[in-house]
């Protein structure tokens, strides 16, 4: 629901990550990790990103979204498993004392910059 705000944050962080001496470059791709428990709809995020990126170094960049499964560890029996449905009890011993290991991510992992000769080579095809 707040994908536009997230898209704007992504653009801010990605823009700040471009090395200062390369201010003119084009960012071709932004690699994200999004946990399944994060309240983010990928398609909606891409739609907002495309609009918000206009007239920034990220205009036209692709958003690569790696979806991270919800992994949990049981504090009682130490079992680890992937939570698929809406149930947060231990698969093995049914304990409710669990630790969420992954699934809450909303991280920018990296940006990929297109070198100028790449763009030139492309346009010459």
């Amino acid at each position, binding site marked *: *629901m707040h994908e536009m705000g997230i898209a704007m944050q992504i653009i801010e*962080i990605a823009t700040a990550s471009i090395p200062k001496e390369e201010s003119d470059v084009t960012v071709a791709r932004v690699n994200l990790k999004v946990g399944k428990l994060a309240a983010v709809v990928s398609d909606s995020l891409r739609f907002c990103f495309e609009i918000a990126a206009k007239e920034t170094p990220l205009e036209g960049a692709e958003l690569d979204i790696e979806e991270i499964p919800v992994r949990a560890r049981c504090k009682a029996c130490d079992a680890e498993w992937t939570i698929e449905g809406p149930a947060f009890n231990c698969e093995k011993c049914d304990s409710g004392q669990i630790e969420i290991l992954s699934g809450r991510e909303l991280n920018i992992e990296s940006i990929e910059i297109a070198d100028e000769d790449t763009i030139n080579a492309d346009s010459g095809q």
Partner: protein
Amino acid sequence: MLIRDNRIQVAHHHQDGHNHSHPHAKGDTAVHSVKSGLREIKVVRRVLDVNEKMADENRVLFNQHGIFVLNLMSSPGSGKTTTLEKTLAAITPEIKCAVIVGDICTTNDADRLSVSGVPVVQINTDEFGGDCHLAAHVIEKAAVSIPLNEIDLLIVENIGNLVCPAEFDIGEDARAVILSVTEGEDKPLKYPLMFRESDVAILNKTDLLPYLDYDVEEAVSSIRQIHPGMPVFEMSSKTEAGMGPWLDWLKGQVRNKLQG
């Protein structure tokens, strides 16, 4: 559309066990085709970093004043404001409170709560783009108008929404979620993050149970499926029936905070 996202993405299953989706938006194929020409720059930052930093700053500020901060969340119409009205009436003046109330538009809630005599700050998120949740920077701004030296409890009535508020730390000590018996018993299963992230749940409007086909046991079991062991207070804010355990819990939290 009944197809779930994760099913659609099965076709893209990678060896590392994660699902990637690669939409090929118009215009991106040219650069994509010459992969060797892309230079990757590591970033590794949380997108909500800015919010989390500000939430930590809020927490430090509230801790300095020994204030217990409660983030009160629910879907629209499940009784947040009535619960607040009745809660404030029951715990003041014993506990000194202030309220921040968030809505997209109108000051109706602040008007209702101002009769309680406690300081009320209304936030309208339409100024912030009609946000669906309160973020930490909004609370920081609102806190300026609150006499922090004079209060022990700050209750933040979040925007009515079971999705986004769960995602945003505002610097609170605890989160309470209200579910009312006019909503489905399976709401917790549909909005797992909210119920997972909350510390206590209120099952509200129990005065309506005689008129409804509502299975309280199923609702409580849905909540516990998502958050095993979470306290659930079955009550009616309207008639005040069953409010005791909720008030005791809240007073206990404030006391613990005061005692450091």
